């Protein structure tokens, strides 16, 4: 069993209303100088050996389902 992490973030040029709201809330709470962008983190447990082929499957899954590539970018990496 191996664990692969898929990080999905809104593309930088795309409006991130969530991040904006969080940034505003932090400021009101007195945390200054923090700018936040909010995305998603998926922990994917892969059954069996983590072959290159398996990893490619996770990448495909990310592209197809986990991220909406029109507005989001994703990054796939194996957890150390």
């Amino acid at each position, binding site marked *: 069993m191996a664990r692969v992490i898929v990080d999905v973030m809104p593309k930088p040029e795309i409006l991130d209303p*969530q991040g904006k*709201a*969080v940034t505003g*809330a932090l400021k*009101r*709470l007195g945390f200054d100088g923090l700018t936040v962008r909010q995305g998603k983190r998926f922990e994917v447990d892969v059954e069996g050996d983590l072959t290159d082929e398996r990893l490619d499957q996770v990448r495909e899954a990310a592209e197809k389902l986990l991220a909406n590539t029109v507005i989001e970018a994703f990054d796939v990496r194996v957890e150390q």
Partner: protein
Amino acid sequence: MSRIGVVTFPGSLDDHDAQRAVKLAGHEAVALWHAHESLQGVDAVILPGGFSYGDYLRCGAIARFSPIMTEVIQAAEQGLPVLGICNGFQVLCESHLLPGALIRNDVRTFVCRDQKLRVESIDTVWTGAFEPGQEITIVLKNGEGGFVADPDTLARLEGENQVVFRYLDDNPNGSLNDIAGVTNARGNVVGLMPHPEHNMEELTSPSLDGRTFFASLERFLAAVPS
């Protein structure tokens, strides 16, 4: 006639409906603005439904830190009746006035329907006028109504009669133990996902079961020496 405060956060939607419900129940509705620091001496507070701060981050997470909530938390701890409806329930959980949390519906869509519930506890300020075990219908409409808590908390809630409402027929959102609403140990703070303020008028409601929430409150307020 009592004075019942209804809080408006940025993004609150059912605040006017809650005010209308208060008036239909024969009470004075007091509008409370999130940025103010006074409860204006109200006899009870309703945290209404909606999408405070767009429901960004987590539902209720940002509203919980508004100035009025500091007052609400303090007053609730001293016994002030507080009812959290939908987003209001989420704010109460984020404020730790109620246990557990609400997460995205397991069906992963918004759900709007006339929902059957069973009243599991009448030992609260807001449910005293119901019959034990009464089955009622209340409008349900939310995207993040799945109630979760760790196993110990869940066991405690069940054991100490803090589960107030349970979904009947069909669990709409994956809530653990079909929980639709809970109370604090003292019974003055109640939160539920369904919307009793939308069950006050024949013309616009699937039932009139919302009125009993106010009848319960009246009974409680009449009993406490003011």
